[in-house]
């Protein structure tokens, strides 16, 4: 009550602001004179300069402890994730057979994606490895010795290789190919020395309110084999060979070629959205993580629109 606040008129307020921004009497800009600004700016310049130096120093020191070869911790990547190509928004592969534009972009992406798998390139850069066993390349005393990669030839993908394929990976005929790949994890021995393969099923997702509440979806799913129809896999049976493991990292395993599994859906019920879930069957990869829907598995929607 002591500080009686007088109501200021609008003009006064503007006037006060003007004076605050530039006070011609005291030569103050925003409440400070030139010298005052110079001092305070200098102070903060020195202060922040010092802080930057200190930050840089600590960052540098930290980066010295991080090796180029392997990350310090990999505990978050215990289960490699699965992913599909073509990569679409929200992972739904929708094909309007009559509408070329609807699948052309998928085809373009796939062409680009599969280019490094061309047999010629593979033969030129990579080794032919012995299937059924890990391709281990110990350093043998030479630090970070560059590693060789095994060949994965595009032709291994059979009808999905897209080589001389007038159907454009089957997209023009409503028999699309979807490629499945497993995420790279350094020094991960997938399969624990036993053979592994990818398998796919159709699922009916029961949309319950739980999905709105952000709860893990309940396991109430029914097989939807009927709508999914038949499919074939390349390499046969969806096998992934052990020879593509382990991965030694981008820097030393330069030409590493990720193994793929192609799934060609032959007679999906048209005009129905089918939920496909593919998972890897391997001894050391868990696929039942409730929260990570892509740990050791991948789910995507498939819809063939036929008029």
């Amino acid at each position, binding site marked *: 009550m*002591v*500080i009686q606040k007088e109501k200021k008129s609008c003009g006064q307020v503007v006037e006060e602001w003007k004076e605050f921004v530039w006070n011609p009497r005291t030569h103050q800009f925003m409440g400070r004179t030139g010298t005052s600004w110079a001092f305070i700016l200098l102070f903060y310049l020195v202060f922040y300069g010092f*802080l930057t130096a200190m930050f840089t120093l600590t960052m540098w020191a930290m980066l010295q402890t991080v090796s180029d070869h392997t*990350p310090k911790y990999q505990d*978050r990547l215990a289960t490699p994730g699965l992913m599909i190509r073509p990569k679409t928004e929200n992972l739904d592969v929708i094909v309007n057979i009559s509408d070329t534009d609807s699948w052309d972009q998928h085809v373009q992406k796939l062409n680009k994606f599969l280019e490094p798998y061309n047999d010629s390139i593979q033969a030129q850069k990579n080794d032919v490895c012995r299937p059924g066993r890990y391709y281990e390349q110990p350093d043998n005393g030479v630090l970070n010795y560059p590693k060789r990669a095994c060949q994965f030839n595009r032709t291994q993908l059979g009808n999905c290789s897209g080589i001389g394929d007038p159907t454009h990976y089957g997209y023009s005929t409503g028999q699309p190919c979807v490629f499945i790949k497993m*995420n790279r994890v350094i020094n991960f021995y997938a399969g624990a020395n036993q053979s592994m393969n990818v398998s796919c099923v159709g699922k009916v997702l029961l949309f319950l309110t739980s999905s709105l509440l952000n709860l893990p979806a309940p396991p109430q799913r029914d097989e939807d084999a009927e709508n999914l129809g038949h499919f074939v896999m390349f390499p046969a049976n969806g096998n992934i060979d052990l020879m593509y493991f382990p991965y030694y*990292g*981008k820097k030393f395993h330069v030409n590493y070629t990720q193994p793929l599994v192609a799934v060609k859906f032959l007679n999906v019920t048209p005009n129905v959205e089918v939920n496909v879930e593919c998972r890897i069957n391997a001894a050391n990869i868990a696929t039942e993580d409730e929260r990570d*829907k892509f740990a050791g598995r991948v789910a995507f929607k498939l819809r063939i629109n036929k008029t």
Partner: protein
Amino acid sequence: MMNKNLRKGGKKKDLEELKKEADMDDHKLTLDELSAKYSVDLTKGHSLKDAQEILFANGPNALSPPPTTPEWVKFCKQMFGGFSLLLWTGAFLCFLAYGIHVHYSEKTNKDNLYLGIVLAAVVLITGCFSYYQEAKSSKIMESFKNMVPQQALVIRGGEKMQINVKDVVLGDLVEVKGGDQVPADIRVIAAQGCKVDNSSLTGESEPQSRCPDCTHENLLETRNILFFSTNCVEGTARGIVIATGDSTVMGRIASLTSGLALGQTPIAAEIEHFIHLITAVAIFLGITFFSLSLILGYGWLDAVIFLIGIIVANVPEGLLATVTVCLTLTAKRMARKNCLVKNLEAVETLGSTSTICSDKTGTLTQNRMTVAHLWFDKTVYEADTSEEQTTGKTFPKSSDTWFHLARIAGLCNRADFRPHQESVPIAKRATSGDASESALLKFIEQSYSPVNEMRQKNPKVAEIPFNSTNKYQMSIHLLEDNSQAHVLLMKGAPERIMDFCTSFMLNGQEYPMDEEMKIDFQNAYLELGGLGERVLGFCFLNLPSNFSKGFQFNTDEINFPMKNLCFAGLISMIDPPRTAVPEAVGKCRSAGIKVIMVTGDHPITAKAIAKSVGIISEANETAEDMATRLNVPISQINTKSVKAIVVHGSELKDMNSEQLDHILKSYKEIVFARTSPQQKLIIVEGCQRLGAIVAVTGDGVNDSPALKKADIGIAMGITGSDVSKQAADMILLDDNFASIVTGVEEGRLIFDNLKKSIAYTLTSNIPEITPFLLFIVLSIPLPLGTITILCIDLGTDMVPAISLAYETPESDIMKRLPRNPKTDNLVNHRLIGMAYGQIGMIQALAGFFTYFVILAENGFKPWDLLGIRLYWDDASINDLEDSFGQQWTYEQRKVVEYTCQTAFFISIVIVQWSDLIICKTRRNSLFKQGMKNKVLLFGIFEETFLAAVLSYTPGMDVALRMYPLRINWWFCALPYSVLIFIYDEIRKLIIRRRPGGWLEKETYY
């Protein structure tokens, strides 16, 4: 606009009128005039019909209830006032952002929704808390209501009838008897031994007799008026109602009190200023980054959401609660020191007080007449007046004169101790009888012998009690040594006693009265009277043997000699100052607080007490004193050299506000004497006009307007009336002025400590905002999420921030001037600069360092993070490549992100350790201040423990998206924590070394 002003002006005029003295002259009228004025028959009263008509015209005799604020308005004030408004705006913006999100994108992030809910919850909880506190202590009008009497005895048409008090009308003939409450303001026309207790109105505690004669110009002081809602103690009175309802004196005070507009407390003003600053910073940052994000190519929608996010992130969620708790803690601490604070914000107001208007009686003084001086054997002796009888002052008790004096004082005395008080110290025993006699009784009991024994040995055979015409009291006692003879003892006004005496006693010998003795007597009388003391003279006469035992003394027709008495001496009494008061006044002076005494007492007494407690210091004297000393007329005194003044109430009455301002401004030491309650209000307003923050003490109903008008009203816990207690912001449980000073000390301390607390809380705002800013500008994964921000603001920062309220002062806070509310703000740009620009920046770096460490160690090196945001936050990309060529699913990298956020959070906790330690002091080194604050130590452990619990408790990943950290990630922030401490110690060192230097001007908050 014009209209509004006019209306305001009108209301103000009403108030001004109320503030003026009650301007009635009914007490001066003769009975005939009175009868004519109210056209009423003084024996039969109104006719029933007239009474009905008047009642119809004037309305019922009741106080009109003040325009009460409905409960919901009060509640809303708590909910939407000041700080809460800021939080509400934040909450609203959050909901808005969430709404935009929901409307325009499918995948919704609920963070904004949660933040909005939490913000709303914080305001609701703190609002309810404050509302509850407030509701407990705002019942001022209710006690007025309780004071309204229920039934009244009126005489209408010659018949006595009991009617409801609210039906009493102007001019009614009313009868009041002992035990009744007075039904209206009444002019007495007949009274038999009527005494009324006016204490609730005037503060005078002794019952006063009433009679039909006008004894004083002033309505409040004349004896022929009975006041509405005071109590009639004994006797009966008959009178004419001269005012009813709101026009009564009590009604005026009631409407004056409720009509006073309450302003902002200083702390509320400070908080408002703080909100302005925070809002300015928030909006500045928001707009800057809004434009920046548009330049960087974000969509409008994203930019708006960023803008809202940045503004909200600037809201210190926990501060409202912190401030409330800090104030509550101090209020509790004050209560322990006998200051009961009713209104939380008043805690700090007391600290910024620059003027204290104090009552005299009971606050500065003991409210207990005590013998202060004696004069016998032609010498003035000082008696011990301290509360605990510790000064050990003494006088020659061996003198025979003392024996005579003590005998008169003990025997010619009607006061008596109340029974069963043997264990109570004599000075504190309750007595029956008038104040002076009680003082004598206690004094004799203490320094002579038990009075009861004296009285038993010397039984009283006759007495003439004191009355105002005689001005003496006489009693005749049988002598104990020779049980046949009587002695006549007399005490009274010294000049009256002197008239009876023809001899005097000197060292036990009787001498005939001479001129020299008379002059000595006059000097002594003047000296003691000049000290503001009440002086009594004592004399005696040994009655001749013909009036020996068995003689029937007749006091009505005096049949014994009552002249040629022998003068024994003078005893003077005063209500002495409390022991602790002079020291407290001294403290106030060194603390730059002006102490003004406002009393209804006589100027001489007031001045004497003011001098003895130091309100008028030894070095200063009033113009009158100076004139007497220099022996020049008062007009020749240069008023500029005079720093002390005693203002009489009647002078004050004729002053306009400029004159009053002039007095308040130009005199350092001011005593207002003989003031009326309304004048107290005028004085308070005068002080406030000069920009002072005023504390006022008071106990009577009459004081309540001043109490309410003051920035902080202080009521007396023991003697105070309920109304005054309710109008006050604070109650002094021990009525002691010294307690106010301890309160001031606490108030100043909490202001300093709140500064520290706010500095501490604000600092962590920067490491909370910068992650979001860099998230926008550099497109890196979000380093700190909303939930973690809330965990800091409402979790880990709370206890440490509160613990700063327990910090001890850095220096003697009572040695500096009161803060200037205009320039010395709670939060200023220096504090913001320190918290945001310096310490906050170091903290942010600590957090980012930890963040980059964790990402790098998991595979994402710093430079690979730039621009990664769009892919990182895309849930459909489940093969995002890191710096090593590994691929991550959405969920996997989110776990790393949340781990980073947890680590960022823990880094903030770690840098807040050192922030807390540096906030302990603003100038001193920590090594001087020490780590004695146990609550603060507990706070550090508590926040660390809480952080660990949040990180390591299983299930936290689901509940709060917090993940367990590796131990080494705890240490990333440590170097920065140390840096903060070292930087600030150096800063403070320079500030101490170069007082007034650049660094102090720019960084000392």
